[in-house]
């Protein structure tokens, strides 16, 4: 009689599965693994490379000379080209953020107080620009602002003189505000959506006029949205180079433009200097964001 015996399962195969099933640590590791790997490979490693490069010396052909130096950092803190760029970028970042706030908050407030059907329509309108390419939209602004563009044609037909609108700081600001506004409106809208408007009635009942009701009740409670929106506008703006390039030309030089130039457009490119600049930039922004969040959100939230 041939009694067929089922061969015992190979111990090796079962071992891995058994390990996975039994050890929670391994399970967690398996889940986090791919994400961590990606993070390390595409973020941590490049970051380390940049840190390394920032201490090296640039070579005449664009390649890097392995001599460690602090010269890059020294230049960045002393040369006026760079220092002016910092202040200009910071200033533009702040102005853009403030204007986006002044326009975005009332807009979000208006939308939130409409009937549900109108709300969807209005939010949809705010989001439409995202469906088109950012570069294309910026080019559109060039067409509107240039000397023969939409605005100037209108002005001339009304009898006014042509204005130079393009290649100015103002043009850059318009381009930036236009591009960043939805990022301010949406977080504030989300905050306002959760806001209990009866609180404003209570404030009014207790003697607060509309301004005080806004400052003492609405603003503190929508701060998370305001903070989030501000950060979402400020950071990209400070590092901007596309808008300042297209709408500002050579006249408006921001950090982003300098950075881009150091890495790509200079002849020769200066990676160490660029890396140092990028790092300083990152550091300052991180500090600013932490400070902003500490100040504007409740500590026990």
């Amino acid at each position, binding site marked *: 009689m041939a009694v067929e015996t089922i061969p015992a399962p190979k111990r090796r195969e079962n071992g891995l599965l058994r390990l996975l099933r039994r050890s929670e640590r391994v399970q967690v590791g398996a889940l986090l693994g791919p994400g961590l790997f990606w993070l390390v490979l595409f973020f941590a490693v490049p970051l380390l490379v940049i840190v390394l490069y920032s201490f090296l010396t640039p070579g005449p052909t664009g390649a890097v000379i392995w001599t460690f130096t602090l010269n890059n950092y020294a230049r960045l803190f002393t040369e006026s080209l760079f220092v002016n760029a910092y202040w200009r970028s910071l200033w533009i970042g702040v102005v853009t953020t403030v204007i986006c706030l002044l326009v975005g908050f009332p807009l979000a407030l208006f939308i939130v107080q409409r009937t549900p059907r109108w709300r969807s329509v209005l939010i949809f309108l705010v989001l439409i620009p995202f469906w088109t390419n950012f570069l294309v939209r910026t080019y559109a602004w060039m067409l509107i602002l240039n000397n023969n563009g939409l605005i100037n044609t209108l002005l001339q037909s009304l009898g006014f003189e042509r204005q130079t609108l393009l290649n100015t700081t103002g043009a850059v600001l318009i381009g930036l505000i236009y591009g960043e506004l939805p990022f301010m409106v949406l977080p504030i809208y989300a905050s306002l959506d959760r806001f209990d408007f009866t609180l404003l009635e*209570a404030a009014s*009942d207790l003697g607060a006029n509309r301004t005080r009701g806004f400052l003492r009740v609405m603003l503190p409670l929508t701060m998370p949205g305001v903070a989030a929106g501000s950060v979402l506008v400020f950071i990209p703006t400070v590092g901007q180079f596309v808008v300042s390039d297209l709408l500002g030309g050579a006249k408006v030089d921001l950090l982003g433009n300098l950075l881009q130039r150091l890495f790509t457009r200079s002849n020769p490119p200066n990676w160490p200097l660029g890396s140092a600049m990028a790092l300083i930039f990152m550091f300052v922004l991180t500090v600013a964001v932490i400070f902003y969040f500490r100040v504007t959100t409740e500590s026990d939230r």
Partner: protein
Amino acid sequence: MKDGIAIEMRDVVKQFGEVVAVDHVNMNIRDGEFFSMLGPSGCGKTTSLRMIAGFEYPSAGEICLNGQPIGHTPPFQRNVNTVFQSYALFPHMTVAENVAFGLEMKKVPKADIARRVNEALDMVRLTGYDERKPRQLSGGQQQRVALARALVNHPDVLLLDEPLGALDLKLRKEMQLELKGLQERVGITFIYVTHDQEEALTMSDRIAVMSGGKVLQIGSPTEIYERPTCRFVADFIGESNFVTGRVSHSDATQADVTTSDGLLLRGQCMALLSEGAEAMISIRPEKAHLTSQEPSAGTPNVFPVTVERVSYIGSDTRILVRLGQERSFSVWEQNTRSTVDRDAYWQQGEQGYLSWPVENALVLTE
């Protein structure tokens, strides 16, 4: 000021587009009284309250506070405070900051603010809770903070919009007594909105019963309960039997109503009624009697009935009898004796006699 009129609503109308929420309402609320506006959802009581507070302005008519028109003054300029149904406590402020808010708006000096806040918290028995945040409080505590926050400002009138709705039954009953006691101590006019008639009857000096944007009747709890002026009020407050028919005879104080199946019922009326007019007679179940022996001849309102259903509630027994061909009539008897003998209680199918004194029934034409 005392014995004066705190709030006068003169022919007030409020329209939201096509909807008339408040329809020519007239009310005089006396200084120092506990006045309730009672009615089902959508009757206009909350809208009326909001107009007194200033969150809505009347479409027509005028509202006066102590004789001064305030109909179109914004809320922050009225010396009136509100306790909201949802309490509306400021979540980002502590209890003390919440209570102090109104005083800060009036620019009261800091030292006075601290003292008055403490007094207010004492009054609602929340001493020591100054530094807590609203989310750390129970519903009942939040409600008391809302009360303190309103009262600390010494308003001329305090408005309360169904403030006890979110509390459980036991807490609600406790708070009803507390609120009433508080009002008596403080002496401020309270205007209270509720859909709970028991609450209104328990707490109020006077009640305005509202329906469909109109005020149907204003009176003391006893007046509203014992002398309703229309069917809605008789029906909304407590329970009542209604028998419809036509007036067959009437003088200035009593009227007879004859039903389509030939029953003759007699009750009180407020004024002479025209013969043949459609009317209904309203008898509350606790005011009718059921006897096994026929009452003496000459007693009005005696009808032989059969017991349809009996509900034993414990403290009383609710008996449904068949009156005439198809009418069900409810009688409530208090269980004043302590017996478990089944025969002592009415049984289904038993025959008996339904009767009521003339003064226990009301003839209504609306």
